[in-house]
Every structure is written in structure tokens, then in C-alpha cells.
């Protein structure tokens, strides 16, 4: 790589020289330009052919080597794998048939539909990431998780938050939990939903109830003692009405941000309902930790090899991407809802969609949904390949925050007075999508 870039620098220098040569008055005067151009053409062509041959040889060399066969270098590609397409189809169908019909009442009553968490387990969302040895599918895939979050949230944003709460915990434990933690907790998520009436639910708690909350400066903290750790603090926007069996709690420990595994029935853990503007059916609330004694295995990923070490920045970035993916699904459902509406709604003797002021809002929704999707997919696929993805996730969130909230607002606007009523889901999207500017943590790809 070093010699490659050095070669490039040389080429850049040569280009600069060639260009200066071309502009030289003598060259122009004596008609030298044409022959010099010919020389430049030939030498560039030769040079490029050589470099390409070199590259071809290099990859051939690898193939004959002792190490594993290298896969061909990836090309820019937006094609989903067959498996991803299959998952997409089934999740989309589930969202349409099983989630959307529940959304209105669930939001009105601010209540999670009784059997939703158990029913949704039939999709197998919690199994995907769990290692095969523990009863799962061993498919920890951030990119696939993004697709799932998008399509579920197309059904309903808030209910998707509730459904993905547990999945986010299994994803986190599968990614960063140590062997002991995985063996202790993950099989509990694998119980057969048809035989086992009680699902094992869990949630992640990062957010705290103070203005200017900063996920890097947590006030929730843990201290080490003889038995293990003692946890103190308060978390907000925690879903599932306190019915979760297990929490993953972000807390400061020895000056670092860590995650602790906290059984919900530990002494000193309490939940208080605290409904919000949106996410009402997820039944969010305040989770309090008052001198909660945790055992020695409570620190996520303790003792892991360096490559499997818990990474708080990745943890937060991955969470933002989950929310972004849900926002994309929600915005897509808004667009899908609005297109027939503006075509059928008449004003001044024609469909309102014949007006540019309306049509352009629709066009812009499409443009921005596509924009959000590409940024989120790029970040998630980088994460999946183990590449640095903080900047991508950061920018994706920045874009999704602005654009999805704008789409939420415009969805109500396009429906006019009707959009302001509960006759249409737009006012719910308007409220749910606001969380994009507030959120920190809570989900995990």
C-alpha cells in the first residue's frame, strides 16, 4: 500500500509537470504539443496496463498460497442476499398482518398488546444472533438487523421498539458477552414459544432523565465490592412496563462506560411508568437502581479476548443505527399511506396530487428516505465487516434525525385537518419520530 500511494504521488507530480509543459509558450509556438500529447497517451496507457497486470498477478499469487482462498474483492453492491430477502418478506408480512392492525388501539390505550411479544417470537428474531451451540442460528448480522427493524417499524414504530428490546439484548450478549454470560442467559431466550407460555423479555437501559444527557458522561455508576458490583442510578425511556426479566444497564465503572447485566428481580430495582409523547404502546418508564448488589459475572464481556472486548462507542453507534432503521421504516409507511391519499383527495375539482406544492413534498419524502437508507446501510454493513463505522453512524443519525422528523411533520401537513385527528396514523408517526432527536441507546443491531 505504501509503495502504491508513493507511485500515485509520483504520478500526480508527473501530471503537474505535464500540464505546465503543455502551457509553456515555447511548446505552443513550435507545435510540440501534439507529439508530447501522443507520448503522454502512450506512456499512461502502458503504465496503467502494467499496474493492472501487477494487481492481477498479486491476486493470483494469493490463490496459490497456503492461506485460505481470498474471496474476490467486493464490488459496490446493493443486492440483498437470498436469505436477507426471505427474512424481509416474512418480516414485512408480519408487520402488515400482525403489527399494523394493533397499532392504533395500543397507542390509544398506551398498552402493549398482551400476546404480542410472545407471538412475535415466531419470527425467530431473538435466535438469529445466539450461537448455534446455545440453540440459536449463530447469525449476528447488523445489516440484516437493519432490514428487520425497517420492515417491522413499517408496521408500527412503537410496537417495534417493544419487540426489538429483547432482540437487542440477545444481540448484545452474543456480540460481547463472555462465555459464562452467554451460557447463563442466552438459552433462556430460546425456549419454544409454542410450548412455553412465558417469554423471557429483556431491555437495554442507557438514557437518563436529565436535560443535556450525554451518553459519555453517565451518572449511573457501579462500584466493586467483595460480592461483585453495586449499582446506583436512574434510567429513562425503558420499555416493557417493568415486565422485563433482564436489563442491560450502561453505567460508569472505574472511569469507563460499561454495561452491567442486571436481573430484574434483584433487590433495589424498581420501575415506574413514565409515558412519553410517543412510543406509548411500548410502555416506557423510569428504571431505578438503589444499591443493587450484582454478582461477579455482571460486567458485560469481562475477561474477553481483546478482539471481543466490549466497545462502548460501537454499542452506542449500533443503537443509533437501530433507531434510524426504524425511522426509515416508519417514514416509508407514511409515504406509502400518503400516495393513495393525495391521489384520492379532491380539492378545486382535481386530486390534490396534481398540485406541485403537494407533489413536491411527496417527491422530497422519497428523496430523503432513500438518502437515510443508504447512509444507514453503509454504516451497518461496515459494522458487520468489522470496519470503523463511527463517522458513518454519526452522520446517518444526524441525517435521519432531521429528515425523519421533517417527514413526520409533513405527513400530518399533507392530510390537513384530518392528519391532526386520530382517524389517520400520521399524528402517531409525528409523535413517535420525535424520539430520533432524543434517543441514546436502548436498542442494538
Amino acid at each position, binding site marked *: 500500500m505504501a509503495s502504491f500511494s508513493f507511485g*500515485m504521488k509520483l504520478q*500526480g*507530480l508527473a*501530471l*503537474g509537470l*505535464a*500540464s*505546465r*509543459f*503543455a*502551457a509553456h509558450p515555447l511548446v505552443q509556438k513550435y507545435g510540440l*504539443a501534439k507529439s508530447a*500529447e*501522443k507520448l*503522454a*497517451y*502512450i506512456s*499512461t*496507457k*502502458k503504465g*496503467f*496496463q502494467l499496474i*493492472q497486470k501487477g494487481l492481477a498477478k498479486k491476486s493470483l499469487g494469493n490463490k496459490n498460497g497456503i492461506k485460505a482462498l481470498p474471496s474476490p474483492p*467486493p*464490488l*459496490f*453492491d*446493493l*443486492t440483498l442476499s437470498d436469505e436477507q430477502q426471505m427474512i424481509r418478506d416474512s418480516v414485512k408480512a408480519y408487520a402488515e398482518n400482525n403489527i399494523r392492525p394493533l397499532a392504533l388501539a395500543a397507542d390509544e390505550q398506551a398498552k402493549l398488546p398482551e400476546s404480542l411479544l410472545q407471538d412475535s417470537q415466531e419470527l425467530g428474531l431473538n435466535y438469529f444472533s445466539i450461537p448455534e451451540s446455545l440453540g440459536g442460528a449463530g447469525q449476528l448480522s447488523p445489516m440484516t438487523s437493519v432490514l428487520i427493524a425497517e420492515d417491522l417499524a413499517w408496521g408500527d414504530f412503537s410496537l417495534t421498539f417493544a419487540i426489538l428490546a429483547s432482540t437487542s439484548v440477545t444481540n448484545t450478549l452474543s456480540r460481547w458477552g463472555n462465555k459464562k454470560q452467554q451460557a447463563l442467559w442466552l438459552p433462556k431466550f430460546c425456549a419454544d414459544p409454542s410450548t412455553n407460555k412465558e417469554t423471557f423479555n429483556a431491555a437495554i437501559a442507557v438514557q437518563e432523565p436529565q436535560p443535556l444527557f*450525554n451518553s459519555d458522561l453517565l451518572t449511573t455508576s457501579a462500584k466493586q465490592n467483595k460480592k461483585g458490583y453495586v449499582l446506583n442510578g436512574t434510567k429513562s425511556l425503558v420499555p416493557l412496563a417493568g415486565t422485563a426479566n433482564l436489563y442491560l444497564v450502561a453505567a460508569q465503572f472505574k472511569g469507563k462506560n460499561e454495561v452491567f447485566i442486571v436481573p430484574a428481580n434483584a433487590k433495589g430495582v424498581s420501575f415506574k411508568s413514565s409515558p412519553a409523547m410517543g412510543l406509548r404502546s411500548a410502555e416506557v418508564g423510569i428504571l431505578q437502581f438503589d444499591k443493587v448488589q450484582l454478582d461477579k459475572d455482571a460486567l458485560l464481556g469481562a475477561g474477553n479476548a481483546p478482539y471481543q472486548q466490549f466497545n462502548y462507542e460501537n454499542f*452506542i453507534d449500533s443503537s443509533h443505527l437501530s433507531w434510524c432503521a426504524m425511522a426509515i421504516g416508519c417514514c416509508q409507511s407514511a*409515504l406509502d399511506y400518503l*400516495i393513495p391519499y*393525495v*391521489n384520492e383527495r379532491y380539492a378545486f375539482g382535481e386530486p390534490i*396530487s*396534481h398540485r*406541485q406544492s403537494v*407533489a*413536491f413534498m*411527496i*417527491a*422530497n419524502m422519497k*428523496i430523503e428516505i*432513500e*438518502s*437515510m437508507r*443508504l*447512509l444507514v*446501510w*453503509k454504516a451497518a*454493513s461496515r459494522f458487520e465487516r468489522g470496519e470503523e463505522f*463511527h463517522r458513518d453512524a*454519526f*452522520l446517518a443519525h*444526524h*441525517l435521519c434525525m*432531521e429528515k425523519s422528523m421533517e417527514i413526520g411533520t409533513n405527513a400530518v401537513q399533507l392530510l390537513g385537518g384530518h392528519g391532526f385527528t386520530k382517524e389517520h396514523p400520521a399524528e402517531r408517526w409525528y409523535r413517535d419520530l420525535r424520539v430520533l*432527536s432524543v434517543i*441514546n441507546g436502548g436498542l442494538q443491531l
Partner: protein
Amino acid sequence: MIYLEVPKKLRMLVDQARQTADHVFRPISRKYDRAEHDYPIELDMFAAIMDGMNDALVDGGAGSGKLRQGTKDSSQIQNGINMTTVLGLAELCRGDVGLSLTMPRQGLGNAAIAAVANDEQLARFGNKWAAMAITEPGCGSDSAAVRTSAFKDGDDYIINGEKIFVTAGERADAVVVWATVDKNLGKAAIKSFVVEKGTPGMEVTRLEKKLGIKASDTASISFNDCRVPRANLLGSEEVSSSKGGEKGFAGVMQTFDNTRPVVAAMAVGVATASIERTKELLKEQGIDIDYKRPAKLGSQLKAEVYRMEAELEAARLLTIKAAWMADNGQPNSIEASISKAKAGRVANNITLKCVELLGTVGYCEDELLEKWARDSKILDIFEGTQQIQQLIIARRLLDKSSSELK
């Protein structure tokens, strides 16, 4: 497999284009911004280098003269000519949009020829630098309303009319002219003709003085009984019943599916230049763009930079996506318009915002930032304005005809 990075096999080309931007374009950028209408002689040398590079590339190179829709083959993903062109051009325009537009043999007319010419025409015109003449004093976005006429006379057509805003219209070797063969038949009768430089009756009447891209010659061309052989008509000569004719026009319009992502790429390039330079200048002031959370606790200035970067990244990926679809034979009309709409407005906003953020440093000519802010405006206008792109996108989404959604 989802992979949204520049493919390895094109990184060398991208880097090459970047070097060109830095070492060939930037040093002469201001010179030709001031000397509007002077021919940048440095570019002949560069064009020779480009041709050498193109002809050596195993996949058939890049550039407007090679743009065409790939074939659909689901077994193998292509990163071909369309992608190579948008990636390369974005880098060149990071150097200078005006100079990129004046690169020999990279005219939009070349794209039209590449898309619809037959083999005989390709042989004759393939290596010529061809400009594109659509706009007239009385019609811009409404390209179906062209008044320039082409009357058949034996084996020739006789062209009469006035074209304006022809990019590279003076320097190019040929001009692809849109003209109607029958004013009563509307779109169906619009055909395009290759008129070679020096053809009697064709005259460059003036060059525009412009806000930006001054290095590029924007010509008005008049045609007075300009006789062109029938063999220079691109595509089918037939003016069939309105249905088939519409199709013919749609075919011509399809050139835009290939060229819009290219213009979007130009926008991405100039916006990249502005942001890069702005970040450098801010860094000298001790402001490091560090992507630290939460952004809302940081400065407004940083928030602006984040917003610009996010918008630019969106424009960049939309552009590459549209090109990727073209390479893989997927219909990309809506994506081409999306990329152009997004990149056009984003580039204009970004280049202007950078001037604003940097105060007089951004506004004065010591930096190129003010120039980029002038250059970028055209990218939201030519090859279909922002509003035309939105119309195209909206009509497709809402399933409306151009008479319903006007």
C-alpha cells in the same frame, strides 16, 4: 451483498483523478475563472493522458463518450462504465467543474451518441468531441417545445433555428442538435442530428458571460439552412403514430438516465472541495470536526458541518447507486432524478454555507471557496432543473402523466 464502498478495482482510477484535480486543475482554476472564454491549453495534454488511461482500463474505460446502460445479469454484479465515470468525474470536479466540462471528448453530446448511435455513426463520431444543443431562447426545461426545424430534402436535412446554452459549443468538434421534423406532431417529431463543426450554415453567434464555470464555453449557435446528411440523424428516422413517436422521444430522453448521475457526481465533487477546505481552515482556528456526541451539546458551527457532511454523503451514495443500477441494466429513471435533485441542491447549499461560515475568507478570491459557490449553481439547473427532477420523481410515484401533474 451490501457493500457501499468504492470498489477496490476503481480506487486507482479515483486516486488518479484526485491527483489530476490537485495538480492539473487547481493550479489553473483561478486563471481560467478570470480569463473567461480563453481556451485552457493545459487540457490537451491532460486529455491525451485521459484517453491513454481509458483505453488501458480493462472494463472499457469511463467518460461521457462511453456511457450506456449495462445488461441485466443477476449472476454477476457489475461496477462498470457508469460507476467509473461518476467516481472519476466527482474527483475531477473536486478540482474544478468548469475545467472538467471543457475536457475534450467528454461532452454531453458524446453521451447521446454513445447511447443511440448506430455502428456506422459510432465509427464516424465516436472519437469526436460532441456538445449537446437542446435549449432555445423560447424553451428550456420544456424540451418537447423546440422550434428548431429539420426539413428533409433528398438525402439531407436542412436545419434552421437558434440554440443557446450549448456547453462546449464553440470548442467541440460536433454538436448534437435537437430539432423537429414536423412542428404539428409534437414530441414524436423531435429528432437529434449530429452537425459537424464547419458545416455551412452553422455559426457560433456568441459566448455567454456567466456566474460560474467560466472556463467552460457556453455558446449560442444559429442554424441557417444548414444542410446535414440524413446519415447524421441519431436513432430512428420514422415519425410514427403518436404512441410510437412518444416512445422515440422517450428513447432520446433516456440519455438523461445516464447523464443525470454524471451531473450529480459533479455536484458531489464541488461540494467535497468546499467541505474539505472549510474543515482545513477551521482546523487552523482550533476547531476540529471530531464527530463527538451529543452533537446538540457542541457548537452550532460543528452542527452545520455535520449536517453538510451527512447531506453530501447522502448525495454521493445516491449518485453511485443510480450509476450502479445503470451498470447492471436496472431501470434507473427515478434514481437518476433523485441523485440529480439531491446532489444539485445539496452542493449549492454546501458551497454557499461554507462561504458563510468562513466570512470574508470564504467570500474573497484568495480562496477558491467563492468560486465553488458560483460554479455549483449551474449543477442544480442544467441537465434538468431541481424542479424538473421533482416533477419526474413525483409523476412516477403518483403515477401521473405530464398533463395531469404539470
